[in-house]
């Protein structure tokens, strides 16, 4: 598996796979294939895909540790940037199709509607993560600080879930929300469990640091 993951074609293939939802939405938008309310469809679909990519990127480290497919780490940055790609589209669709780029109205809407405020906060918090995703940023910040910053993704996943939960709350329609919540909860619980069991297994601090690559913590 590691060999396959290290294959030069793996990354481009996954890159294209990640673009498939976008391609399908773009195709639908130009061929009238998004149903009666294409604006709503685009806004919701880009939101769904943001949440899915957050789940995918949060799954990388648990999967890597459990399976020892260490080469998975190569993909994590790209997957994280796709989460950002879809959230930018999400915000763009909302600002354009729902609000007609009326900035005053958008500002009012964000302040007035808690679920949009929460979603917008998640976007704002995700921005520095995307902005510091290149190697030089890691060096400039120092691995430790960089890791701390990127732990924000846990907060962001919670805000994203709350945003989705609130959006569905008016209709008491939580089935889908609970699926995402269960996945994210399991991925975060694994981290807590992993942290706790490592603490038990090893003498505190010291040894760990030197042997780790900066991208390790997830």
């Amino acid at each position, binding site marked *: 598996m590691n060999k396959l993951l290290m294959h030069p074609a793996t990354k481009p293939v996954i890159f294209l796979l990640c673009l498939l939802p976008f391609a399908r939405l773009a195709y639908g*938008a130009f061929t009238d294939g998004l149903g009666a309310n294409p604006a709503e469809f685009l806004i919701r679909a880009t939101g769904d895909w943001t949440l899915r990519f957050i789940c995918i990127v949060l799954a990388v480290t648990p999967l890597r540790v459990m399976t020892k497919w260490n080469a998975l780490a190569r993909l994590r940055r790209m997957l994280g940037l796709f989460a950002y790609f879809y959230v930018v589209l999400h915000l763009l669709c909302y600002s354009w199709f729902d609000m007609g780029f009326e900035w005053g109205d958008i500002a009012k809407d964000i302040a*007035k509607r808690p679920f949009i405020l929460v979603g917008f906060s998640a976007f704002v918090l995700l921005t520095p993560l995307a902005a510091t995703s290149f190697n030089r940023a890691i060096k400039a910040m120092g691995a430790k600080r960089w890791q701390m910053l990127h732990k924000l993704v846990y907060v962001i996943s919670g805000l994203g879930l709350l945003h989705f939960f609130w959006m569905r709350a008016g209709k008491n*329609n939580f089935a889908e929300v609970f699926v995402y919540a269960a996945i994210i909860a399991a991925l975060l619980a694994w981290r807590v469990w992993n942290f706790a069991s490592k603490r038990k297994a090893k003498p505190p601090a010291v040894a760990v640091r030197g042997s780790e690559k900066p991208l390790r913590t997830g």
Partner: protein
Amino acid sequence: MSFQSRPIRRSNSDNGFIHPLSSEITPRAAYEGRRDLLKLMAGGAAGAALAGFASREAWAQAERPNKLAPLPGGKSAVPGAMSMDKLTDYKDVSSYNNFYEFGTDKADPAKNAGTLKTRPWTVEVEGLVKKPGKFGIEDLLKLSAQEERIYRLRCVEGWSMVIPWVGYSLAELIKKVEPQGNAKYVEFVTLADPKTMPFVGSRVLDWPYTEGLRMDEAMHPLTLLAFGMYGEVLPNQNGAPVRLVVPWKYGFKSAKSIVKIRFVEKEPSTAWNKAAANEYGFYSNVNPNVDHPRWSQATERRIGDGGGLFAKRRKTEMFNGYEAQVGQLYAGMDLKKNY
């Protein structure tokens, strides 16, 4: 009979009781063409503008999609019953629905509502009326002359459509059953059959879905008991075989697939009000000035508007544009409190 007391102009000889063979019916396009010509001639030079207006109105009659059994409706004389807005495509009206008994996604009802059995169907009228009873759907269809009504429909979610319904004023039925003096409200109970409605078991709402109107709202001529749309019987996903359409209220007030109409003294509880009282009030009149707690109601997206994806949202009108007809029902009421 009561409905004869007001002038009804019909666009054909069908009085709603005796249906001619379909082969004997003059095609709509033909009779409308003749009528347009007559109107133009009668109007003469002085009435040219008026004739153009009148022919526009005739033109607005919906073309049949030829999907279901025909249900023609004569032209309605009720003020405000013929919106001049461009009709929403039948395809959109029948594929983008909120009908939670068949699923919470708006595409679900069209996929799942095939299981709904609309025959036999009875509507039970009970409560504070002198003549309670069970009405078979065939009798209900013939109870009064079917009219076409082109109404705007504004969903509480912020989208809208323009739909040519076929039905008659609910008032016609109410007059027949003779409400008692203490009947102040009308409650509508809809079908909740777990065998044919896959989501009736879900916990989204408290089933059956119920709705209610104040007596004067129920008696208002615009309040429609609808059996069809686009000149055909209702598709299942749109609330077949009989539903309510209250055009000045948010769409969820217009109960679908009604099985019981109950006349009561106290304001009945309603499904969405039970689910979220702070978000959905009993009145739920379309009102651009009273926002939903989670979103603005100032604008709406008209489904199928020209420009598609890039069409701007339009401003929502007070009482969905029916203020002239229904505003007086709420005179002196605080509409912010009674949302």
